[in-house]
């Protein structure tokens, strides 16, 4: 039972490693983004405005949020491809769960991507933000960030399943991504947003997966460690429940239509 999913993990890992150009492009993109934001924060700081923190620490915060988000494999596009090409029809009759297989493959890809991107994020943050002000907090952010990437990946599966209705999932993905920007505090720490945004963010998965781990580097955690563990587990369960419910409903319809 476990063996076949281990095989999917190995496939995911091998497939991710087979595209080194993608890794390098991502790492480069991450480092450049950190450079852009370091420049933005310096420009904002030079106006004398109070942005509620040190620009250098904000670079480390961004490095952590971007790392979590970029490490999560884009399984949703693979599911979209399965739907568009009709491959899903033969994949669901395999003796392995369609969702389980994608999750396992994603896990393998995550294992290949996360360490490389983490190295890129830390190097970039060090170059543009200097040494971390709270090194131990960076360690905590990384530990929670690994779990958070897994939760992000689970929601990517849910996004991918929307292809059964929409065909092209790009718009839903963009909306999801932008909600992550705002409610997850991807670019700006959530504490800079108005209270109403912070209140909404607390009851969404976005703050748990991004601001939760990354805010440790600001030394002003958005969630306490215990709360963050509960939030991440809770939101992972919600993602699993949604994915399984949607997929079962779709699979029933597919079998009926397919005759």
């Amino acid at each position, binding site marked *: 039972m476990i063996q076949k999913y281990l095989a999917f993990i190995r496939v995911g890992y091998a497939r991710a490693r087979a595209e080194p150009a993608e890794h390098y492009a991502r790492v480069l993109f991450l480092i450049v983004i950190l450079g852009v934001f370091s*420049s933005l924060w310096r420009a904002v700081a030079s*106006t004398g405005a109070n942005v509620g923190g040190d620009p250098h620490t904000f670079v480390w915060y961004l490095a952590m949020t971007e790392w979590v988000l970029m490490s999560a494999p884009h399984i949703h596009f693979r599911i979209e491809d399965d739907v568009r090409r009709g491959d899903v029809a033969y994949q669901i009759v395999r003796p392995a769960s369609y969702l389980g297989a994608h999750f396992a493959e994603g896990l393998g890809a995550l294992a290949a991507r996360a360490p490389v991107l983490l190295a890129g994020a830390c190097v970039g943050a060090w170059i543009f933000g200097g040494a971390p002000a709270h090194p131990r907090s960076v360690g905590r952010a990384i530990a929670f960030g690994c779990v958070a990437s897994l939760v992000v990946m689970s929601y990517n599966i849910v996004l991918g399943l929307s292809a059964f209705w929409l065909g*092209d999932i790009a718009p839903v993905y963009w909306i999801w991504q932008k909600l992550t*920007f705002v409610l997850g505090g991807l670019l*700006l720490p959530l504490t800079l947003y108005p209270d109403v945004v912070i209140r909404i963010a607390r009851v969404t998965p976005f703050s748990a997966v991004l601001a939760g781990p990354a805010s440790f580097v600001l030394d002003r955690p958005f969630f306490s460690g215990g709360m963050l563990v509960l939030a991440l587990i809770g939101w992972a369960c919600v993602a699993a429940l949604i994915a399984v419910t949607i997929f079962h409903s779709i699979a029933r319809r597919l079998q009926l239509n397919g005759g």
Partner: protein
Amino acid sequence: MTISIRSARSVSRFSRALFVTSLASAMAQRGAFLMQVALMALNNAIFFTFWIVLFSRVSRIRGYALGDVAVLYGIVAIGVGLAVTVAGGGPHLARFIHEGELDAVLSQPKPTLVYVLGRRTVASGIGDVVSGVAMIALSGIVDLSRIPVVLVAILASTTIFVATCVLFNSIAFWLGRVETASRQLVESVITFSLYPEPLFGGAMRLLLFTLVPAGFVGYLPARMVRAPSIAVTVELVGAAVVYASAAWYVFNRGLRTYSSGSRFEFNG
């Protein structure tokens, strides 16, 4: 000369027909089409809240106020939106090349690049255009007298973005499977073009006006709209011609190395 003008007219008629067919195909599922348009417009509005929050704390960032960022964002949104609406095959070109999907169009009498670019319309591009128009209108910088300038800026931005998609994706002719890397590069052009130009200096600035031409997709067109001048117009139109020519050359050069994917496909 007469033949080349006739040929250009023929390609132009073909491109129009291709666009109409692709658009009709995208609109076949009207509900999904409208949802994609609406969601993309909403997506752009959500992203812009980042700038609203930031500019609620500072009035200007290196000479850029909120209205200037709205113009920049509007130009890029319309430019990219038009590009994926009219030439929606561009962002997927690497996959077409790697998986042998060009086989079906190689035997067509019209230029392969035109066919490949125009055979797909991305519905969400129209949402980009709608939100871009709204942002420019609400920026408080553009009045009716500047509409011709805005149109030239958008046309140049669109041309350069399509050319960039072709250039990045044509790498697949030589390197094989580069779809994700190409997509990353194209996305990085969009991402960097959405930040105020003065944030970038030195090597980064050189990069953004050459290999990752976010400067020509966003900054220069926005500069032209904010403060029109002949020098900027010439620079922008010149860049559009250079990038379009480079894309045409690189794609056709790559086409010579293309090997079939033995793919069977029906084209209506």
